[in-house]
C-alpha cells in the first residue's frame, strides 16, 4: 500500500506506464485487454497528453469503453483496421516474439496451466502496433522457445498480417522487435538496472547497440498525471491495482451508482 511518494521517486509500474505511453505514439485508437492494468494506465496517460486522443478502450471498464455491440466489437473493430495499438503478455515469451498464454510442458497434461490465449491469436495479427509486456523478467518467463504458441511473433509472407509486435517492456528494460530479422533488440535499460542483469535474466538471444541508453525516468508532471488523473480513472477496471500502486481507496470502484454487495 502506498500513497504519495517523495518527489522524483517512482514505482516500477509508473515507469513502465510511461514507457508504454511513449510507445503508443500517434495512434487513433488504443485498446487494453484483460489483466492489463499498466497498459491501461499507459493508454489513459497518452490520452491525457493528447488532449482526448487516442480513443481508449479498456475491456473491463465501463467508463472507458464505447462498445455497444457486445463482446465481439473490439475484435470486429480491430478486423476493420480501426484499432492501432494493443498490449499482450505471455506466461512465456520467446526470442521470436512468440507468446504462450496456455501451458508449460505437455499440452494435454501440463506442468503449469495458464489462463488461456484470450484474444492474442487474432489481435497479434491485425493490430499494427502490439506492445508486449512481461512483469517477470526471468529465464523462465523470457525463454528461447515457448512450449505452446498462443500467437506467433511473425508469419510467412503470404499470411494476411497487417499487425504484429513492435516492442517488449519488462521491469528491467525495453526491447524493440525487428520483424524482418525476427529478433529483439535492446533499446534501453531502466534506471537502477544493467545490461548484464538483462543478459543474465533473459532466456533468449537479442541484439544490442554498443552504447546502451538508460530509459528516461518519468517527469514530475508525468507522475502527477499518473497519480492524480489516471489512477482514479483506472479504479473502475482495476480496483486492486489502483489501490496497491496508487493508494486509491477500493470503494471508488463501485462508482456509477453501483453499490458493492458484501453478502448475499
Amino acid at each position, binding site marked *: 500500500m502506498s500513497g504519495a511518494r517523495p518527489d522524483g521517486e517512482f514505482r516500477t509500474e509508473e515507469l513502465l506506464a510511461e514507457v508504454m505511453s511513449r510507445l503508443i505514439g500517434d495512434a487513433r485508437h488504443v485498446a487494453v485487454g484483460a489483466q492489463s492494468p499498466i497498459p491501461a494506465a499507459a493508454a489513459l496517460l497518452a490520452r491525457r497528453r493528447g488532449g482526448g486522443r487516442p480513443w481508449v478502450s479498456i475491456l473491463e471498464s465501463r467508463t472507458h469503453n464505447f462498445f455497444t455491440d457486445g463482446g465481439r466489437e473490439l475484435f470486429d473493430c480491430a478486423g476493420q483496421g480501426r484499432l492501432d495499438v494493443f498490449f499482450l503478455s505471455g506466461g512465456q515469451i520467446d526470442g521470436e516474439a512468440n507468446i504462450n498464454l496456455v501451458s508449460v510442458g505437455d499440452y494435454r497434461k501440463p506442468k503449469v496451466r495458464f489462463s488461456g490465449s484470450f484474444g492474442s491469436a*487474432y489481435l497479434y495479427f491485425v493490430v499494427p502496433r502490439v506492445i508486449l509486456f512481461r512483469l517477470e523478467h526471468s529465464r523462465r518467463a523470457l525463454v528461447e522457445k515457448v512450449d505452446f504458441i498462443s500467437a506467433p511473433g511473425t508469419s510467412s509472407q503470404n499470411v494476411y498480417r497487417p499487425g504484429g509486435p513492435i516492442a517488449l517492456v519488462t521491469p528491467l528494460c525495453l526491447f524493440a522487435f525487428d520483424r524482418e530479422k525476427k529478433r529483439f533488440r535492446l533499446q534501453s535499460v531502466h534506471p537502477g538496472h544493467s545490461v548484464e542483469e538483462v543478459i543474465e535474466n533473459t532466456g533468449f538471444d537479442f541484439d544490442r547497440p554498443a552504447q546502451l541508453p538508460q530509459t528516461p525516468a518519468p517527469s514530475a508532471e508525468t507522475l502527477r498525471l499518473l497519480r492524480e488523473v489516471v489512477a482514479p480513472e483506472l479504479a473502475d477496471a482495476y480496483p486492486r491495482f489502483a489501490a496497491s500502486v496508487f493508494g486509491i481507496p477500493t470503494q471508488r470502484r463501485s462508482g456509477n451508482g453501483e453499490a458493492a454487495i458484501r453478502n448475499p
Partner: protein
Amino acid sequence: MATIAGSLEEALAPIADGCMLLVPRGNAGVAMAATRALVRRGAKRLNLVAVPTSGIQADLLIGSGCVESIEAAGVSLGELGPAPRFAAAVRAGEILVKDTTCPALHAALQASEKGVPFLPLRGLLGSDLVKYRPDWRVIDNPFANHDPIVLLPAIKPDVALFHAPMADAAGNVWIGATRELMTMAHAARATVVTVETLHEQNLLDDPVLAAGTLAGFYVEKVAIAPRGAWPLALPGHYARDEAHLAEYARLAASAEGFARYLDLYVHERRAA
C-alpha cells in the same frame, strides 16, 4: 415461448446432464445463483462453452465435478490470479480443454446464429491453437491467391444460461448493450435466463427498451433471482464483491479449501 418458472430449480431443467452449456464472461451477466443450484443438483458431464472467457463460474463447476469439457479463450479470476480448480483439473487431465481465442468463439456462435456451417477468421495461423483443434480447417481463400485462412465450424449449444437485469411476463429479457447475450440465445437451442426483477410492461412496447431487449421468442425459461450474479457484478446494478472473490481465490487454492467454500456458500444455500 418463455414461461416464468416457479423456482430456480425448475428453470434449470433444460440444462440436462451431458449438454453443451453456453455461459458469458465475468461482467456480462453470469448466472451465479443458477450455477450454485446446478452444483447442488449435482449436474454432470457439462460441456461448458465460455463466451469467450470465464472465471469463478467455470472454476466452481469444474471443482464440483460437473464439467467434462470446456471451450474457452481464457479461464481466470482476473486480478485475483489463475482459476485454481480449472488449473488443477487440467494438470490432472480430468477435463478436456478446447483452447480458443475470443473472436473465434464469437465467430463460431455467429455461424450458428446465421445457420451457416462455418465462419472464416483472420489470424490464428501458426498458433498451436490450430494444431490442437482438429475441428478447425485451413483453406486457401478462394478470392485471392495463396492466402490461407482458418474456417471455424459453428458451435451449436444446447442451452445458453445468463443473468440479466429484467424480463417481462412474455419472457422478453432486457440485456442492454451486452449484445453477445443475444447472439448466444440465437445460437443456442434453448435459453434460460435469471433476472433481478420482472418489468411490468412489455419491454418491446417501449422503443428505447426494445433496443436492448432479447425477444421471449428465443427464451425457454426465466427465473427471478435477485442479486443472481453475486459475487460477480451486474453492471449498472451492483459491483463485484471483491472481498468474497478474494475469499474464493484463497479457499479454492486447495481441494480442501474448495470443499469448505462449497459448504459455506453453495450447499448451505447461504448464497441462494
